[in-house]
């Protein structure tokens, strides 16, 4: 039982030396492995849910799958107002599913891929590109560039900053929430381990030595904090990320 507390980044399992200057070496990290696992879980779930589809006398499984699809459709349609963005539905659903499963996978002791800034940055950049593309499609390149000079030309740098702040804030919000969960879970486990070591160390002799090495208090108590930091925070952040994605894109299409 270590008395030191540390929060470390994802483990690097294997490094492929690519020699590409800017990108550097390709590291197979815990993030990538777990995100592949998440993809396998989601795809497996999809295949499992859509097995044996029927029109009448549907099973509970099919009802659940239909509920998920309806939820996805309604989420996008209600927030954009109409069927204009139906192409976004699979993207937003994939984003949400990946995010939720990634956040909740920490419950089984794996490291969330979302506790790595690169993951959220990737998503946020994709969303940012989509927002920009929608804006350019709506207003044209000239209109898009002109949008930066409103209300007056002096505001241009601030407008550019606020434009760039969108992906940064989206990524950091999600990342920070999940990382805070990781850190606080780590802190709680560490503190409970120390506490149980101190508590059972009071028992003299071999029994005390043996018991003090087992973090008995760690069983059960972290589940209570996990309700907020894993379940609530994980679902909420995934929801907010998708909500913001849809709303930003819908707003981008409305301008002009």
């Amino acid at each position: 039982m270590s008395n030191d507390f540390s929060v470390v980044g994802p483990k690097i399992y294997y490094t492929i030396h690519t020699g590409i200057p800017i990108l550097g070496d390709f590291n197979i990290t815990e993030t990538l492995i777990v995100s592949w696992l998440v993809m396998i879980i989601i795809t497996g779930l999809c295949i499992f849910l859509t097995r044996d589809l029927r029109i009448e006398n549907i099973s509970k499984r099919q009802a659940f799958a239909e509920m998920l699809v309806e939820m996805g459709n309604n989420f996008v349609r209600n927030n954009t107002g109409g069927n204009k963005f139906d192409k976004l539905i699979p993207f937003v659903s994939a984003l949400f599913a990946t995010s939720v499963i990634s956040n909740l996978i920490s419950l089984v002791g794996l490291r969330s891929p979302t506790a790595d800034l690169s993951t959220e940055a990737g998503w946020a950049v994709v969303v940012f590109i989509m927002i920009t593309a929608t804006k350019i499609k709506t207003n044209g390149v000239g209109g898009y560039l002109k949008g930066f000079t409103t209300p007056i030309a002096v505001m241009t740098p601030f407008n550019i900053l606020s434009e760039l702040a969108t992906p940064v804030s989206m990524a950091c919000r999600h990342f920070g929430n999940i990382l805070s969960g990781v850190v606080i879970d780590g802190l709680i486990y560490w503190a409970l381990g120390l506490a149980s070591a101190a508590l059972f160390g009071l028992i003299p002799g071999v029994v005390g030595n043996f018991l003090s090495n087992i973090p008995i208090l760690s069983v059960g108590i972290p589940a209570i904090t996990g309700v907020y930091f894993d379940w609530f925070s994980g679902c909420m952040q995934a929801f907010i990320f998708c909500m913001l994605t849809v709303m930003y894109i819908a707003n981008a299409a409305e301008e002009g």
Partner: protein
Amino acid sequence: MGDFQILAKGIALAGCGIGAGCALIAGIGPGIGEGTAVSKALEAIGRQPECKGDVTSTMLLGCAVAETTGIYGFVTGLLLIFVAPGMFMGYLN
């Protein structure tokens, strides 16, 4: 390792620690903001109890967005505690 280096490292570590502490002041804003949001939401629910579901979900969304600044502070604090010392140590060695 000379005395100067040890002093420099000590100052760097102290700066990181103080900075992390200051960064977490950012938690005050979201705390106040979320408190206001929740109190207003409770008032709304008190006035119109039939809107409880809508008000609650919107409030949660707003709270989560308002929490962003606090999260920024938290991330900054984490950076200062876990990343910055290593960086400074690398420079100072």
